[in-house]
């Protein structure tokens, strides 16, 4: 069976304001396209990009019935693989934030970075994993 595309969403650990709505929108769209959303967070807080994206994905599932497929690769420890929720995996890595970031940088097929301040969002298509443009930027949708 062919696996689904894994789309990573990153945005730092800052609490976000307006960007949260963008992150939720990205999460909702990932659910709508039936891809897998990978972030460094969980669904238990929506003030950071990583959590807001997951919240958006889950909200879309509640709204439409489409399945939200979520993977959270989180720092610190001890190591744990939490598969208790359907279509979800949360791995506690027992690594520091920066070490964990290395995993989240190389695991997805595509990475979308959402910056905190108004400006440009960026999507990065890994040159090691897929053909086509390696990255491109797009303005935030206001």
């Amino acid at each position: 069976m062919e696996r689904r595309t894994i789309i990573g969403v990153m945005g730092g650990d800052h609490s976000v304001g307006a960007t949260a709505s963008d992150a939720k929108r990205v999460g909702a769209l990932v659910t709508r396209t039936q891809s897998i959303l990978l972030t460094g967070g969980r669904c238990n807080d929506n003030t950071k990009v990583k959590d807001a994206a997951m919240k958006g994905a889950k909200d879309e599932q509640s709204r439409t019935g489409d399945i939200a497929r979520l993977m959270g690769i989180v720092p610190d420890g001890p190591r744990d693989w939490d598969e208790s929720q359907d279509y979800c995996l949360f791995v506690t890595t027992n690594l520091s934030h920066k070490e964990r970031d290395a995993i989240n940088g190389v695991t997805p097929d595509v990475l979308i970075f959402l910056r905190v301040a108004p400006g440009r969002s960026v999507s990065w298509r890994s040159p090691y994993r897929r053909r086509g443009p390696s990255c491109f930027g797009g303005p935030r949708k206001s």
Partner: protein
Amino acid sequence: MRNKYEEHTADGEVDEFLAAALSACRTKLGSVSGVQSETTVSSLRRTLLSGLAQAEDFSGGIDDLVAESIRPVGKPLGASGFPGFWDELNSKERFERIVERISS
């Protein structure tokens, strides 16, 4: 992102971040695509700079960004890039099995 590269190259944050990631790749993670024995912080920084130089501007909104992200590339997706944990045997395989299950 280009502006941030310039800013954080000057203040050393890019190198600091890449050094931590490279150290993790060498001591705590399994095989990481693109990281070889001869890979250095400088070579990673050059790869990043090259990627930024080749970046194409994208004029669409977030909906278009996600749509472009999942655009088919004409070949089946292989294993993900998850490297596995150095201290957990078969963690790469475990992750790939879960990806398949979640994909169903």
